């Protein structure tokens, strides 16, 4: 995998910032490099995600945030031209170790996508329970689980009377919350969210943010967002990604959210979070 890719003479600057404590980590990437075909899109990303924290990933479009979180639960490898180097440590084990089954990784590291993608051939209820069926898990009280997951995603009141309608009959924002409920139903240890609120109205957005804060009592969340206020409202830690010219993207600064937004170390972080940036 690595040998087929030419070495690119790009050395990513070291990630700055107050950093994140490195004990009690659930998830961490170590010197992660990512390619699409011959093109390196991420260089030397090492980030830590402590247990029960919320980390926001921010940065301009195209800098590789989506690509990065897709490497965290082995969704990246589904793209035929994809390649990578480095490690992703989840609960003390490298998920790219050849002995690890990607299916187990994805079961415990859930994901919510940028575009809502409910299963159109299933009802709302079946959508919520789909994770259990797909992974052959069992649950004794399905109705309770459906209600709990939908309430956490802030959708229960809107759909409780039509759980047997298809997922496609919901509005875009409702579909997205259905997808969140679907991810929560399998009770993952980590939830990766790629701009989960970009299709939501302000009310649903606040509801989802509330959900994220509640989840962080027992779950680790990584969320990509373009909304600076949102990052400040939900995230314990924030990482700022950047891409310059034609170089790969990399993590410029990583630290507690107050530091990144209050007194960032890097000038470019300061420019970006204050909206003085392209």
């Amino acid at each position: 995998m690595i040998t087929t890719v030419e070495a690119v003479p790009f050395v990513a600057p070291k990630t700055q910032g107050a950093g994140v404590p490195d004990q009690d980590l659930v998830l961490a990437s170590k010197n992660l490099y990512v390619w699409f075909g011959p093109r390196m899109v991420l260089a030397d990303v090492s980030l830590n995600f402590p247990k029960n924290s919320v980390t926001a990933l921010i940065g301009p479009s195209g800098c590789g945030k989506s690509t990065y979180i897709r490497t965290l639960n082995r969704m990246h490898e589904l793209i035929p031209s994809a390649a990578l180097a480095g490690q992703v440590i989840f609960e003390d084990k490298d998920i790219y170790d050849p002995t690890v089954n990607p299916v187990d990784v994805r079961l415990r590291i859930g994901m919510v996508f940028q575009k809502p993608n409910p299963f159109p051939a299933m009802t709302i209820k079946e959508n919520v329970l789909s994770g259990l069926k797909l992974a052959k898990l069992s649950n004794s009280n399905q109705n309770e689980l459906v209600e709990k997951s939908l309430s956490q995603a802030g959708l229960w009141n809107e759909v409780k009377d039509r759980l047997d309608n298809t997922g496609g009959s919901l509005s875009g924002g409702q579909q997205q919350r259905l997808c969140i409920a679907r991810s929560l139903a399998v009770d993952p240890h980590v939830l990766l969210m790629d701009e989960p609120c970009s299709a939501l109205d302000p009310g649903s957005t606040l509801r989802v943010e509330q959900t994220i804060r509640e989840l962080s009592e027992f779950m680790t969340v990584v969320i990509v967002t373009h909304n600076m206020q949102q990052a400040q409202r939900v995230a314990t830690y924030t990482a700022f990604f950047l891409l310059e010219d034609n170089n790969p993207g990399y993590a410029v600064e990583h630290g507690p959210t107050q530091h990144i937004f209050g007194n960032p170390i890097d000038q470019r972080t300061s420019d970006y979070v204050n909206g003085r940036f392209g």
Partner: protein
Amino acid sequence: MSTALIENQTPSAQRPWRKKSRNDVLIVVVASTLPALFCFTIYQIGILSPVISGMLFVILQIAAGAIAGTIHRGRRGLADGVLIASIGFALAFIGTVMSSVIWSVLTKGLEALKWQFIIQNNEYITPTSPLGYGGIGHAVLGTLIIVGIATIISVPIGIATAVYITEVRGRSRVLVQGLVQAMSGVPSVVAGLFIFATLIFTGVFEFNGLMGALAYTILMLPTVARTAEEVLRLVPEDLRSAALALGASRARVVSMVVLPTAKSGLVTAMLLGIARVVGETAPLVFTIFGSAKTNINPVEGPMAAIPLYIFNGVRQPFAPEQARAYSAALVLLFLVIVFFTLARVLSSDRRKGKK
């Protein structure tokens, strides 16, 4: 602000986009009646032969469409008018061909179509026997059994092939695709001869229904596989990602997400496969041989099928046998319609809120 609010009335529901201005209607009426009137007059006077005046009508009507379109909407209307007129003629052409086929099958086929015709078999019936006796019950059963077996074999294999090509994306994908493509070019008589040469001539099997079903399978498989492949490609990549991210294995993604999402398309694939073979005669001649007796055992003895019955019937120089052949064609047509409607109804999603 609006009057409706001042008078405190709710306006009634309207569809302004459906209204046509009187001017539009006038233009369409004039443009579509003038050429017809003109040609009809010429034909009546007898200056031109019917064929020539018919051709003149097509040309004039397209020209009239062009003029009307130009008057109505300028240059963009020109293309519109020409296209509408041409499509109208194309539609009329296909409609005429189709309805004349159906009409001749109906008129000639109704004569021999009695209740007994559908349930009796053809034993003791000679080509000259009067119409009140004998029937094609044996051939209906034969066709149902043979097509049924062919469907049972080719649909799973066809869908599995499509899954291999689109979902598994295995190494020999290109090879398999090429083979399927090549198979769809096999002439139907060759399919029958192939089964004959490999299984019957070599003495492994006798003439029987299963051999016919296998010959049909050779024809059905590529149709089912290629249609299913197209249908599976239409399933959005997002859904596969979503299922994988929930911790599903590849196999589960296919069986629980991809196939159910493409369900109605897969039914179409099956129907197209059946439509491909149900009227085929050539694959049956060397495989089921044909029979006048009722035989519902596909692995024992010659069998009858409707297409083969029609083929043998219309070749006879006797009126009763020809009438029976036409009735058989009518029964086949009816069978296909009933079956297709049934499959559609059963596969349509009757849940609420379907997009």
